[in-house]
């Protein structure tokens, strides 16, 4: 694996970004994925889904995993969430090894996973209630995240009354209300139409600026990865390996207009190159 710092005209220091190593030393990496391997067998055949991946995600960083479909990027996220177990290797959050799912790793799924029998408010409240937080405190937190995600007017609606984009907004609010140490997002906008996806990306950028929560975001959409990410991990197709880590040299706050900027296009070209080779690799 190589770490690539794409050059931009202003110096990295000026833009407040560094190489992966200097970034890691500034804050102790919160999420460490060490030599993780995932194998499973289907119909007697052994499949290697993830082949020894190591990733360090420092605190308060927006990390994105991109790769072709079937590269095991979603599986990796499920491993971090504790919803599946690696065949070997370990995953550490802070100094604690991941052992089963927990509220310190909030997750937004690609499929709609709102609880249909609960209103928007009750959905966002779900995690707080499990923690037996007093009602008053709960209400305060829920209101804050409903406002942040622009859902205040819909707090009494049931999920079936909402559009796909709205449902994913509730899912984001629900995960954030729990104040997790890291937010895991598994192609959360993958099922949305492109206009809704753009507005959701804008919303996520704004919400992220306000919270600066560590995020691990999985997508196959390269534009989305560059627009959102501080660093991008490019994965190879099956067996999933880490091909390159790219630090995105685009300053924040980010906006949709930046997709035309030279830096943006440079990063995009780099990722496209990596993935193009990937398809060629696959052919023989």
């Amino acid at each position: 694996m190589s770490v690539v710092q794409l050059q931009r005209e202003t110096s990295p220091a000026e833009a407040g970004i560094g190489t992966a190593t200097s970034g890691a030393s500034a804050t102790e990496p919160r999420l460490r994925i060490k030599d993780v391997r995932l194998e499973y067998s289907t119909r007697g055949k052994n499949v290697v889904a993830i082949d020894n991946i190591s990733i360090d995600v420092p605190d308060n960083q927006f990390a994105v995993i991109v790769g072709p479909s079937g590269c095991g990027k979603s599986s990796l996220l499920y491993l971090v969430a504790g919803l599946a177990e690696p065949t070997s290797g370990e995953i550490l959050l802070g100094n604690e090894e991941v052992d089963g799912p927990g509220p310190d790793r909030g997750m937004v799924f690609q499929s709609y996973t709102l609880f249909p029998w609960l209103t928007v408010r009750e959905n966002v409240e779900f995690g707080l209630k499990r923690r037996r937080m007093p009602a008053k405190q709960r209400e305060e937190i829920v209101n804050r995240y409903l406002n942040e995600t622009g859902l205040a007017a819909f707090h009494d609606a049931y999920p079936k009354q909402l559009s796909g984009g709205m449902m994913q907004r509730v899912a984001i609010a629900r995960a954030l209300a729990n104040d997790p140490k890291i937010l895991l997002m598994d192609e959360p906008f993958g099922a949305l139409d492109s206009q809704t996806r753009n507005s959701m990306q804008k919303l996520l950028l704004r919400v992220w600026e306000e919270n600066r929560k560590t995020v691990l975001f999985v997508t196959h959409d390269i534009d989305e990865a560059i627009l959102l990410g501080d660093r991008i991990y490019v994965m190879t197709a099956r067996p999933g390996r880490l091909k390159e880590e790219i630090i995105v040299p685009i300053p924040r706050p980010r906006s949709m207009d930046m997709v035309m900027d030279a830096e943006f296009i440079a990063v995009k070209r780099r990722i496209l190159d990596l993935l193009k080779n990937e398809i060629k690799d696959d052919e023989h």
Partner: protein
Amino acid sequence: MARKRSLIDACLTPKSEVPASLRYAVSTLTWLAVIGLWSLATYGGFMKDIFLPSPTAVIGAFFRLFEDGTLQQHIWASLQVVVIGFLISSLIAVPLGLLMGTFRVVQAGLEPLVNFIRYLPVTSFVPLFILWIGIGIEQRIMVIFFGTFFQQLVMIADVSRGVSKDLLNASYTLGASRRDALLHVLTPAALPGIVDTLRITMGWAWTYLVVAELVAASSGLGYISMKAMRGFQVDVIFLAIAVIGLLGLFTDTVFRLVRLRLVPWAN
């Protein structure tokens, strides 16, 4: 093409909507046709009234049995059996079915046995039940229980298996314990399916009730039917059938209302 589609077109197009007024008209027409044919056959003298009573004869039987209170008494007897049998069955089948659909161990333990019993016709057990518990109300309750319980178990297990695993996973990442997931995710998610299952099996319970009452009973709608057969009172048989149908319609409506009330989010 701004041409409006004709009503006939709408009627002949698969799955196409038609005006509500047309739907009600057609529904009414069906009933009128049935009653019309019935009237024609009886008043027209095509059928002997010893085999097919006229509508007025059935209405007459209704007033006769209603006035001396026997009808109410037998309706009450039937209702008691069906409700008690159905309640006992549901109270056990709902939690057990949920566990069966959720935990592989419970499934492995129960499924083979349940699937075996499920295919045994409950009628074949009636002689055994009479031998064991006599011909009292307990025997009829047992028939209802036996007829509905195993079906409910399998259907509710299916409902619980159908609950998306993503919902459970989402709850875990929000800090839910396994107990929380069972009580606060799986159960509410399965509730619409549970209510539907109860609604369907309630209809079956009515069928088993009549079977039980026909064979051995001293009260109930099946019993008066049987007694009427011996006395060639075809009008009473028809009355009993109509009452059972209406009671079925009534319980079905109750379940529909319960569903609207209990799980408004699923409608």
